[in-house]
């Protein structure tokens, strides 16, 4: 029996001998997004979990504001903020075991940080430094994906490969509401379902793809409803309710690890900042909408819960804030240093070995750098930071 055998799969049967198919009912998402905070179930939430989430959320919010500030200081080329979406970012990271893999999009550096990546490494791409600032194997975090939805089949392939090798590894892949319109979303979901690959797809529905609102992106009852078309369960969750997202993702991860196949989770959230620092969100949305969402802030929701249940006192809150400030200060300091990037590295990773052409071109650049160094030693050598061209 191979891992590809599908006990419940859909087989063509002649209509004369028509058989009932897989029941779609359990695949359909609930009409309401799943919530915990503000419901009776909140009372039984583990205080440790709440405190853990809270620490990450506060740190995550601070990370977002600090990174945005760094764009203004010219220390980041661009930053797509996840302010307002911290619950999804943090829960995605925490739902995974160490051996699992995370597949983030460009907006999900916070998830990578919450998983243990050094913030400077996570921001390398956005700084204008080398494309991927970390070894993906170290924390099992795939490179940040810029071409939308292209990372989803990667997650499926990796999860499938792990299963073939007998490792109980799960991949969690993150994508935006806009990304669900790409063909790669469709193909990834379908491959995952047919192969019963241990993947969890987390769609952060933050209401917009840059300026395009969800109503122009889909006419579906919900994005989670797409799951049934692949034979996969679809789950809908309040994406600003951190324990709820954490619970839904943890369950999906457990199911995937146990061989139950993929799950599609849609988290309803909101991008409180503009698309990136370069975007002007006032061109396409109202202040009122933003304000309404600010009153459903993921950090505050957990803060209120901790207060309500008396799980953290003022000193505790202050300590969390201080830790976040230390992280921000440290990030600021490190980002204020120019990275050391060697132009000659341009030729190092195109192939295992440089081709004859690349050797020639490398020689050309080396000669130019030597000439420039001789001409203006004051400008710093090739091995020193060059700054961005912007």
């Amino acid at each position, binding site marked *: 029996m191979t891992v590809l055998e599908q006990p419940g799969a859909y087989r063509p049967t002649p209509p004369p001998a028509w058989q009932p198919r897989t029941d779609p009912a359990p695949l359909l998402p609930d009409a309401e997004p799943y919530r915990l905070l503000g419901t009776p179930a909140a009372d039984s939430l583990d205080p440790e979990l709440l405190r853990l989430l809270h620490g990450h959320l506060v740190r995550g919010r601070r990370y977002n504001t600090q990174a945005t500030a760094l764009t203004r200081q010219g220390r980041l080329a661009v930053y797509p903020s996840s302010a307002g979406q911290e619950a999804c970012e943090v829960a995605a990271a925490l739902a995974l075991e160490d051996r699992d893999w995370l597949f983030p999009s460009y907006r999900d550096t916070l998830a990578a940080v919450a998983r243990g990546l050094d913030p400077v490494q996570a921001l390398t*791409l956005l700084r204008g430094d080398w494309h991927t600032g970390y070894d993906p194997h170290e924390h099992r975090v795939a490179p940040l994906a810029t071409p*939308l939805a292209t990372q989803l089949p990667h997650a499926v392939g990796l999860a499938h490969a792990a299963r073939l090798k007998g490792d109980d590894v799960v991949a969690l892949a993150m994508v935006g509401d806009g990304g669900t*319109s790409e063909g790669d979303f469709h193909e990834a979901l379908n491959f995952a379902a047919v192969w019963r690959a241990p993947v969890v797809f987390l769609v952060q529905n933050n209401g917009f793809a840059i300026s*395009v609102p969800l109503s122009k992106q889909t006419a579906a009852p919900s994005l989670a409803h797409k799951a049934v078309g692949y034979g996969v369960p679809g789950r809908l969750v309040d994406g600003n309710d951190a324990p709820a997202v954490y619970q839904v993702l943890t369950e999906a991860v457990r199911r995937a690890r146990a061989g139950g196949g993929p799950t599609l989770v849609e988290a309803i959230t909101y991008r409180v900042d503009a698309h990136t620092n370069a975007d002007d969100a006032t061109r396409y949305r109202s202040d009122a909408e933003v304000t309404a969402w600010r009153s459903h802030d993921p950090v505050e929701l957990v803060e209120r819960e901790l207060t309500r249940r008396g799980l953290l006192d003022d000193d505790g809150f202050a300590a969390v804030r201080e830790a976040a400030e230390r992280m921000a200060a440290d990030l600021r300091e490190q980002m204020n240093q120019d990275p050391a990037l060697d*132009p000659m590295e*341009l030729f190092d990773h195109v192939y295992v070995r440089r081709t004859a052409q690349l050797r020639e071109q490398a020689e050309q650049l080396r000669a130019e750098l030597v000439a420039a160094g001789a001409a203006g030693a004051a400008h710093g050598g090739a091995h020193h930071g060059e700054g961005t061209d912007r």
Partner: protein
Amino acid sequence: MTTAVAATGRKPATMSQALNRALRDAMADDPTVHVLGEDVGTLGGVFRITDGLTKEFGEDRCTDTPLAEAGILGTAVGMAMYGLRPVVEMQFDAFAYPALEQLISHVSRMRNRTRGALPMPITVRIPYGGGIGGVEHHSDSSEALYMATPGLHVVTPATVADAYGLLRASIASDDPVIFLEPKRLYWSKADWEPDRPEEVPGIGTAVVRRRGTSATLVTYGPSLPVCLEAAEAATAEGWDLEVVDLRSLVPLDEETVCASVRRTGRAVVVHEATGFGGPGGELAARITERCFHHLEAPVLRVTGFDIPYPPPMLEKHHLPGVDRVLDAVARLQWESEWTPQGASGTQGGAR
């Protein structure tokens, strides 16, 4: 043709403004022109090239699509089949790749497949190239892919006036046009007014931007300013360089290029795309085929390195700059010691 244009003499304008104006005028003149793409509506595009079009012409004429490039181009094919003239915006160079199957298998050959019954008057606008500090996948120069696909026109402006004129001509073309907009020239400025018919170039005509006698720089799009600067700098070395701006890679205006090279006897092709398998190979090969006996030296190429586009902090090392162009010019064998008899060519520059 230019009813929407007030005849107000020349004013400073950026390339992005000229492109915006071209779209507006085309839409005003021809109700079958429809713009579609990601964020082209309310936002006016990430580079603001479609600014105001939805407001002026309505959502049905300038439409924010779902986020799916194959879907955008594929639906444009159907719209063209029904007599519309779609102008598609791809948000960045690398984000046109999902649409390559629709482009190669349908857009480029639908006319041919149907013996002319289904022309594809589609313009695909693609901001391309680097030099603006974009992170990976935001700075590709993929013109080689489009050049290798018969049935497409490939057009790229390098000046404000050409941006307007070539975009108008592209939209008016009954053949599909890949319209490559050099990102780093979006904010370049010139004194310009949109209604000077003598400035509306046809697709497929190159132009000599600078006359010279020593050698020809053959270039296009983002590398034109580099070549013009290099030509100025070269005067200090005693070289008088001619600069040809191709404007269209397909159809290629061989005549203008070859006339120039035959005059000067030497040529350097300059572009930002990677060299190996890039546009320069075709250009150098073609020039050599047609002008062999006029060449004093092999046609050289100055191009991006054969590497994926670098991160912002390193892109300046990758982009062909003035120095690299001058280095190539210096390698054009100005000494004639290599001829078999040691004789220098004297017959009007030709050997």
